[in-house]
């Protein structure tokens, strides 16, 4: 029986043989073909240099290369001349960071040691810092900006590892990722996979956000990174940025002092204070399964806020704390007990340090519910407590306690101390506080950068027991109070809003809808 033969050449004219057809060119190849020979050669030289600059594994190198290709395509689409594009994307900004294997590793600072120990499924100490620009973010350029920035922050180019006695950060050279924001803010990071990042960079419309696992840094360190990232992003957009004391230059060489465990430099004293405190009253409202279940930002004029605080002869922090206390009172049915608000204290003001690792302690402002105080009396009480408890002596005592505790436990293997520490943290944890207010203060930006940044915010991550956590900062005459909620009960934020408005503050509220699990 004859087999049916394949169609011959006459059939190929009607239905051409697919093997001989050219595959459609990829966009970058099409772009290259559209260039003159000289420009094509310049790009080829660029990518030859890239091969030397990027010695990561095959997959990461391919992805990074594609990042640069997308950047070229973007510039071309925007009508930016190739010379300008090459100048902005100059590979000198990679600084050989991805060309060499690193032997760097970082023991966790004394404040960070508790964070991996207290890790739980769905429970991770995170915070987020965000910058709002006047135009939508261009993700291709943000990705390149991140590639360029990483060399300046070697302690962030790490992955969390488990030692026999303590966790530590091990250098991890990889393509660090920029993602579009699609999920609830401050969700736990997967730090358990090989070479996983302990931070994430997100973009959404005109907002650039960076979320950090607290092992890496504190609020000030995180803000430092965000400023550098945004500055680099703006430079790629063609904005000339002046660097200075308030903004690190990515081309400066990282110094030891910028990544030291500053806790070890503090002179050891005899006095130390304990950590154990009484349980505090918690706000009403069922703890949501989804945490945070809502994030809100109260944007207000910094000048007006300062004027209001000054009208009460007090500081912005004390004023805001007082309003928070009143809002908490309205958000709880309890009639007895103590309201306690945790206030982080930046130790750099007592012991100057350039470190961007954790270097903060905290104090607790505690007022009994039974004490009925009018507003001036409340301000006076909070001011008194803040002055006493956030002073250098007491903070140093607390720091000494932390260091002493760490030194006592250092020879106990993790396999023994982790479950014990986790159990203790689970019992006490954040139940000794009702809420927290972390004030990053005035964020300084160079004038050339400040005019491109509309506002910034600082969001504290989730809590096991506290129903609301507050972060405050000021930039470009806009103060933003960010509230992360762990309950759908709106009593706290609604009362706080009313109280602030009653004092004449005009507040624009932005945020998320409620995340119902």
């Amino acid at each position: 029986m004859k087999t049916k033969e394949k169609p011959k050449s006459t059939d190929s004219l009607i239905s051409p043989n697919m093997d001989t057809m050219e595959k459609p060119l990829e966009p970058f190849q099409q772009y290259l073909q559209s260039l003159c020979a000289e420009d094509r050669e310049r790009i080829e030289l660029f990518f030859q240099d890239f091969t030397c600059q990027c010695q990561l594994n095959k997959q990461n190198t391919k992805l990074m290369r594609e990042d640069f290709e997308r950047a070229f395509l973007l510039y071309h689409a925007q009508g930016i001349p190739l010379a300008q594009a090459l100048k902005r994307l100059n590979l000198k900004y990679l600084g050989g960071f991805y060309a060499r294997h690193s032997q760097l590793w970082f023991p966790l600072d004394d404040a960070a040691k508790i964070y991996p120990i207290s890790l739980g499924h769905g429970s991770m100490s995170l915070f987020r810092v965000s910058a709002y620009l006047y135009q939508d973010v261009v993700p291709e350029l943000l990705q390149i900006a991140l590639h360029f920035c990483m060399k300046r922050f070697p302690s962030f180019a790490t992955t969390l590892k488990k030692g026999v006695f303590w966790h530590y950060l091990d250098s991890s050279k990889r393509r660090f990722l920029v993602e579009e924001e699609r999920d609830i803010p401050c969700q736990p990071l997967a730090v358990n996979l090989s070479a996983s990042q302990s931070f994430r960079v997100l973009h959404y419309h005109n907002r650039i956000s960076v979320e950090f696992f607290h092992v890496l840094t504190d609020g000030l360190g995180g803000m430092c990174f965000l400023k550098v990232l945004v500055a680099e992003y703006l430079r790629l957009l063609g904005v000339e940025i002046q660097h200075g004391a308030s903004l690190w230059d990515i081309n400066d060489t990282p110094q030891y002092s910028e990544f030291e465990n500053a806790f070890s430099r503090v002179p050891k004293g005899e006095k130390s204070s304990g950590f154990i405190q009484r349980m505090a009253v918690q706000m009403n409202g069922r703890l949501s399964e989804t945490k945070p279940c809502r994030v809100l930002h109260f944007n207000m004029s910094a000048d007006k806020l300062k004027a209001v605080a000054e009208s009460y002869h007090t500081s912005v922090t004390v004023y805001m704390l007082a309003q928070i206390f009143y809002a908490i009172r309205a958000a709880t049915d309890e009639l007895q007990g103590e309201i306690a608000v945790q206030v982080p204290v930046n130790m750099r003001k007592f012991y100057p340090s350039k470190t961007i690792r954790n270097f903060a302690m905290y104090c607790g402002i505690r007022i009994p519910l039974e004490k009925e105080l009018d507003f001036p009396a409340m301000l006076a009480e909070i001011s008194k407590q803040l002055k006493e408890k956030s002073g250098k002596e007491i903070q140093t005592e607390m720091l000494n306690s932390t260091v002493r505790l760490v030194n006592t436990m250092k020879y106990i293997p993790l396999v023994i101390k982790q479950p014990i520490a986790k159990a203790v943290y689970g019992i006490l944890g954040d139940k000794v506080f009702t809420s927290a207010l972390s004030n990053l203060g005035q964020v300084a930006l160079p004038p050339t950068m400040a005019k491109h940044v509309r506002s910034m915010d600082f969001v504290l991550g989730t809590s096991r027991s506290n129903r609301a956590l507050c972060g405050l900062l000021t930039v470009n005459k806009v103060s933003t109070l960010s509230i992360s909620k762990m309950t759908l009960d709106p009593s706290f934020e609604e009362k706080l809003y009313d109280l602030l408005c009653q004092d004449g503050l005009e507040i624009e509220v932005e945020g998320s809808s409620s995340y119902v699990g």
Partner: protein
Amino acid sequence: MLVKITYPEVTKCALHQRKLIHILRWPAGLAVYICPIVNIATGGVAWSLLVLFGIYLLWRFLLATDLVEYNRISQSSKLTLALCGAVGLVDILFSLNIALFVMPMLCFTGLCIASILFFTDLQKQKQNMLPMLFFLFICLIAGLLGVFLYKANFAWIYILLFTTSVGLLLSSIVLLGEDFLLEFKRRFHTR
């Protein structure tokens, strides 16, 4: 209070691991509570120990996975040791007298799998050196003990386990070189 929405809408996603833990902990807890009581009441072989161990394995490896250093090498070595524990438990409960033969075979298999994962991607996996070394040392000590204590027909298994462990340890030291010492320094730091 009018809120301008500036965050993306999040769609209801599939059951997250933590929600699964939240839901499954109740039936698991019930089983942990009921099985020993039934076992004690009905008497006989302590089968509830096997059930409890099985629940622990499922929980540990499928639901409440490691939050730090969850990689193929650490998980394969932990699973091997867990299976050895299961075999030992079965042997004790049912007097099968197979554990001393099966356990070293399991360890040898686990060692082969871990070493393939380790040596085929050495540059990346040297950061996962400790789980590998920890498992190697356990196998080495088990092999050594078996060689001296267990002089029956199956001593060859222990000799195989011991020599393989020593070989892999030496290979790690030779291939990693300076990195081996540096990794040790990191893993055992007390700073």
